[in-house]
């Protein structure tokens, strides 16, 4: 188990290196930089501009800048953001936390509804309720997150039950810690619901079909032949096995979850990595873009790693290989 863990962890390093290199290369190919707009300003002399560029190392070739960037980034220091005029690390980590929070709460919500629902639908296969569930799941799979997020905003604006976008209220800094917590939670509700709704359908369908597959397995016949009550057969023997492929799916679905979070963040003004990526792209703070993409990737690959560990913990065939 330990060697498995260590091997999987070491595997993450080349991926993160590759992703940072790829993104850095892409960013160096984008037309213009942060100072392109300033160049339009006749008040700023070309010498001044060159000076500014040199100060931000923008006069160096991209691979040299990548070297600088990487040597700092391994110490989790993402330098100084020329667009935001603050330390980039501070910005990145607060945005990373927001994206993580949103994705985590949406996952927890989606999984805790979808798994029982999927089991229930499989056990009552072909009943009216099962068909209804499956139709609703199709609807959930097909509704675009952009639309769902817009509908949520519309709901918030017309009922005033929830804040319309954002992660914290205007008076956040004046609140007591408990009030701050409530304020954050209040802002988190709608984005979580939107993101969870789009995740839920897929997980439910997968759980249902896994369990149906498992119920056809021979060890289920064995369990019945022992004289176990049907409830035990399903919940102890079948569900326990049907969970394993779901853990694999959890790893795969993370990419979709983070893309979904990207959309929700941008439509509902949730200050996460996705929104930071869009903001820094439009401000042409390229190193900040690279940092955002690398952090989002880190979130994904670490999530995959956790899914692998969970699977190994749950499935002895993988753990003891």
């Amino acid at each position, binding site marked *: 188990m330990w060697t498995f863990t260590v091997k999987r962890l070491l595997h993450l390093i080349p991926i993160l290196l590759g*992703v940072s290199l790829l993104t850095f290369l892409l960013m160096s190919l984008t037309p213009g930089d942060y100072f392109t707009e300033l160049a339009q300003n006749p008040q700023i002399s070309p010498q001044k501009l060159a000076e500014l560029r040199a100060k931000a190392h923008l006069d160096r070739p991209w691979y040299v800048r990548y070297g600088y960037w990487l040597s700092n980034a391994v110490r989790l220091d993402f330098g100084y953001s020329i667009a935001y005029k603050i330390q980039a690390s501070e910005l990145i980590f607060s945005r990373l936390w927001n994206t993580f929070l949103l994705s985590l709460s949406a996952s927890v919500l989606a999984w805790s509804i979808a798994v029982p629902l999927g089991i229930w639908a499989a056990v009552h296969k072909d009943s009216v309720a099962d068909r209804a569930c499956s139709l609703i799941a199709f609807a959930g799979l097909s509704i675009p997150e952009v639309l769902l997020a817009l509908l949520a905003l519309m709901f918030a604006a017309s009922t005033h039950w929830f804040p319309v976008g954002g992660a914290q209220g205007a008076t956040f800094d004046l609140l007591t810690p408990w009030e701050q917590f409530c304020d954050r939670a209040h802002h988190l509700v709608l984005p979580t619901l939107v993101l969870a709704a789009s995740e839920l359908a897929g997980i439910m369908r997968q759980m249902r079909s896994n369990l149906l597959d498992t119920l056809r397995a021979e060890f289920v016949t064995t369990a019945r032949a022992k004289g176990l009550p049907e409830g035990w057969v399903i919940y102890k023997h079948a569900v326990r096995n049907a969970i394993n492929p779901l853990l694999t799916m959890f790893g795969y679905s993370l990419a979709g979850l983070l893309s979904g979070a990207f959309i929700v963040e941008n439509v509902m003004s949730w200050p996460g990595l996705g929104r930071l990526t869009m903001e820094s792209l439009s401000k042409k703070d390229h190193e900040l873009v690279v940092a955002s993409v690398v952090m989002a990737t880190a979130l994904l690959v670490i999530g995959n790693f956790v899914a692998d560990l969970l699977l190994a913990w749950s499935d002895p065939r993988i753990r003891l290989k």
Partner: protein
Amino acid sequence: MSSLPPQPSTPLSPWGLFWKRLRRHRTAVAGGILLIFLYGVSLLAGFVSPYRYDHLDKERSFHSPTPVRFSGFWPAVERFRKVSDPATYEAVAGDLKPLKFLVEGEDYTLFGLLHLKRHLFGTGDPDYPVYLLGADQFGRDILSRVLYGSQVSLSIGIIGITLSFSLGMLIGGISGYVGGTTDTLTMRACELIMSIPGLYLIMALRSVFPSSLSSTQVYLLIIVILSFIRWASSARVIRGMALSLRERQYVLAAKSLGQTPLRIVVRHILPGTFSYVIVAATLSIPYYILGEVVLSYLNVGIQEPEASWGLMLNAAQNYQYLQDYPWLLAPGGAIFVTVLAFNFLGDGLRDAADAKAG
């Protein structure tokens, strides 16, 4: 347990069996029929829509939808008058104008070559506009723009899967068949692409190109970017299939006949992956549709004045507008229906291709 499941009494060819199972799948059939309808309407968008996508009417900004009334048995629309500025409209009771069919209106081009003026329906009177789904900020008919926008959304998926699956099949097939360093390198590349959350990579790739491109250029660019990311996952699966297919007798036979690897991959390995490809491709069409929607919504996709569903939703991002003019969300409904139809069809195809689900 050897006698389960019962076998059909009349043997059918694999394709015959596939069709039989697909036809029995009610939702798949419904999805398929809906798609045929949507594609038909989309091809005839210029004719079906009462206006052109860029028909401006600043006097009728955010005009509310005009419901179809009946004057006797003949469908008609009411005249609306502006009650307040900005943009509240009220129907003038009893002031009806009958709808005309094949009415003469703005000229448009069908199939890129027919220049026509006749529209499926309209009033023929500019004082009685037909806004079945309302109008946007610039008084443009939302229905017409949804119809024109469908040309983007419905074609982008088809071209996208063609591109990404050809790429995925070729690269995955060769990688699996040849093995060795080629295989390792390709798979590492796939892994790299797949480990970046999709939209982050899409945005990074998009930013490499200038933001001021024509809509046609952006359209092509979106397809290329989305396909560039998508080929990786199909290549991985097809590589896995190629790995097992290359041990088959007929492949070994072709090899012993001295056929070139490329020919073996194209003629003998790839045909074995077709059923997977058809199902996976159908199920990944929504990815392209939604990809374009997000890019256009975030202002880095299709540009005004062209119509695209994502771009139209962008106009709805002001929640004040959303509350007052909810019909701005109509393109969202169009996306939903289209994606739903593809999911229904794809699900049926998967069940039909997978005998176990019988």
